[in-house]
């Protein structure tokens, strides 16, 4: 509701520039914003999951359950459930209403990452180290695991000019042993995009669990696949030090065989030839950011229409591992590698002095004041008041109907209850700022 009163110039800042907060609670390895952007979940190296309230920058929940470092975090759509996966081979679904464990799922191998279905918090997809990627579904009470294939789909179109090339391709698809390193749902939940260790993108239908399309994007490991919030584009980060930006094909109306997976841009650091630790889209999808490997301590921000580098955010003395852009504000959070501190960059707007009195106006240059005809007329108080009161009669006021303001996040988002009793939680808070 404050959007109508805020300075439009301040609102138009597209990316953050100033380091505003540092959160120090344990050693954080991965972070994730919820859909509304008011809570940030942080997984620590000792297995604890902390939920920060980004209105107070304080801790809203401490979730204990994992015994090894947390690998990944995923929020449900309404913000009530949080899925965490850890190196102790378990995935835990937490209910944030009271911090209890809704479900615990054990696996037979280490987990690369787990992600919840965008609409159903009882379905999630995991990529495992020594096993096939697994879709876990517990909507009907029992935990069902469905194994998915990592093998690329055979292409069976006949318009390949070269017979030998087609043969080589088929052989490559069939015999190249590879494992899936990352799996994520599309924005509608209809398909799963899985990236393999040989650079293939496998698109799997989440209902039939069959691979419907495979495309070789690169020759090295695919480390991350992430979609923009609108779902119109997706990013692929791979070990060949390139980040590739693609336009998502029309998933609803077009058959998988006819999809055009077109690359839009390649982002790489040609000077230092660095690997990228982590990638993310901006809240409106116009910017892509990535954190650099080892000594650089930087976050690069590129603009997606032209592909040019627009900003480098520097972290004080620490290599940045995980980066996240707040889905509704111009705010970036990132974790450091050495101390596990969470750095927050945001926009800082100065106070508008014209707000301090009703007749103050900010002007660019001197304005000649034109007096009104009746400026210095002396009107007896009663007549002036009566004139004002009569004017009011024409106004129609509506104090009850709630109107939606454009630009505001209007969906229902779960509010984590504030725990105030001393015996509710025992933790020694050592956070700063």
């Amino acid at each position, binding site marked *: 509701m404050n959007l109508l009163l805020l300075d439009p110039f301040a609102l138009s800042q597209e990316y953050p520039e100033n380091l505003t907060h540092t959160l120090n609670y344990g050693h954080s390895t991965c972070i994730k914003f919820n859909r509304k952007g008011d809570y940030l979940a942080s997984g620590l190296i000792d297995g604890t999951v902390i939920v920060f309230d980004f209105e*107070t920058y304080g801790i809203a929940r401490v979730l204990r359950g994992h015994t090894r470092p947390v690998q990944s975090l995923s929020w449900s759509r309404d913000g009530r459930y949080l899925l965490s996966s850890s190196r102790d081979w378990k995935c835990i679904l937490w209910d944030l209403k009271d911090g209890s464990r809704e479900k615990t799922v054990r696996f037979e191998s280490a987990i690369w990452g787990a992600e919840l279905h965008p609409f159903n918090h009882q379905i999630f997809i995991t990529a495992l180290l020594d096993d096939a990627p697994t879709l876990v579904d517990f909507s009907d009470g029992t935990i069902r695991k469905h194994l998915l294939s990592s093998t690329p789909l055979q292409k069976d179109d006949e318009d390949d000019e070269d017979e030998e090339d087609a043969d080589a391709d088929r052989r490559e698809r069939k015999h190249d042993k590879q494992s899936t390193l990352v799996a994520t749902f599309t924005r509608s939940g209809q398909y799963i995009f899985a990236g393999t260790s040989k650079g293939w993108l496998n698109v799997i239908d989440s209902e039939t669990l069959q691979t419907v399309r495979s495309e070789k994007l690169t020759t090295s490991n695919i480390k991350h696949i992430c979609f923009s919030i609108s779902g119109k584009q997706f990013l692929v980060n791979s070990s060949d030090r390139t980040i590739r930006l693609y336009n998502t094909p029309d998933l609803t109306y077009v058959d998988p065989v006819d999809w055009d997976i077109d690359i839009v841009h390649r982002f790489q650091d040609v000077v230092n030839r660095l690997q990228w630790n982590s990638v993310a889209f901006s809240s409106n999808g116009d910017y892509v950011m990535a954190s650099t490997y080892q000594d650089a301590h930087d976050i690069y921000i590129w603009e997606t229409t032209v592909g040019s580098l627009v900003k480098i955010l520097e972290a004080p003395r620490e290599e940045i591992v995980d980066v996240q852009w707040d889905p509704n504000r111009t705010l970036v959070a990132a974790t450091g590698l050495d101390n596990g501190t969470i750095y927050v960059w945001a926009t800082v707007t100065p*106070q508008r002095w014209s707000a301090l009195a009703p007749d103050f106006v900010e002007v660019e240059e001197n304005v000649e004041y034109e007096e009104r005809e009746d400026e210095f007329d002396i009107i007896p108080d009663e007549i002036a008041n009566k004139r004002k009161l009569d004017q009011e009669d024409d106004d129609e006021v509506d*104090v009850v109907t709630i109107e939606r303001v454009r630009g505001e996040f209007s969906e229902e988002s779960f*509010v984590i209850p*504030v725990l105030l009793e001393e015996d509710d939680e025992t933790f020694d808070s050592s956070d700063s700022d």
Partner: protein
Amino acid sequence: MDKMDMDRSADSSGDTTDSELPSHPGDALRHRYVSTNANARAVVTTERTGLPKYVLHFILEGHKAGVTNVKFSADGQWIATSSADKTIKIWHADDGEYETTIEGHGRGINDIAWSPDSKVLASASDDKTVRIWNVMSGRILRTLRGHTNYAYSVDFNPKGNLIASGSFDESIKIWDVKKGVCLRTLPAHSDPVSAVHFTRDGTMIVSCSHDGQIRLWDTSTGQCLKTLIEDNNSPVSCVRFSPNGKYLLSGALDSAVRLWDYLKGRCVKTYQGHKNEKFICVSTFSTTRGVWVVSGSEDGRIFFWDVQTKDVVQILDGHKDVVLAVDAHPTKNLLASAGLDGVVRIWMER
């Protein structure tokens, strides 16, 4: 049509006689109802809902000094009253039964606010602290220290994780409820801050002060977004947002209650007829049946105005001294009023 005789006890508005009344307050009516009161002033109602017909339901007694504020809980089950006798009393909203007393403040209490989950109460007192209590057990959960003079007013944000408090020391402090620390101090006014209120989504705070200004603040940055002043600079005693957050209702010590459109920056309605020149008389909206503006008055009466036409649609008698606070129940047609006579009256409309 016959003149229908409606139930009315001696306490309700003795100065309105109604003719051609509907049998059912909720009917969609097409006629305009015109009635005259003892002062021969035509009282015109809105086209659909008819006049408010509040009558005394029960009286809550027990406070040993004047009652400064009365608030219904967000779930509508409880009434909390704060008093100059340093205590807060909790009562049931449906039958007026006394539940418990919360003690702990060192001096009289100026304002109370319920948390959105109705389990926790915040109170601002002359002992310069704001305290947070567990309502059922009466246990103190947090003491917020920091103000350098009387704490005058307190409000929870809709999520329940922030508290804003206005004080005699001319500042507003925003507190983190969980940690109990002050997150931000806003150098709000040049005179005591008399009221603070959050919007429905918690993004803005409105505050008013004895210097005659009403200011809107952005919660996350603490910056001032807008200032509104009425021409005669009279002290503003209370301010709140309308239920949809688009308008502000303010009461000033020139016996006028004003409705402001803060985007246009001007007053769009003025409600007059009551007396308010010395004390802080709270005004509020009653939206459960018709849309009324309700305010207490220094002559012991409670005034109802129609929001659109600005006419006085009901006057309730009964208090023997200044009526300091009124509050409307969130869902039922109930009104609570309290004042310097130490008695809380609950009025109901059938």
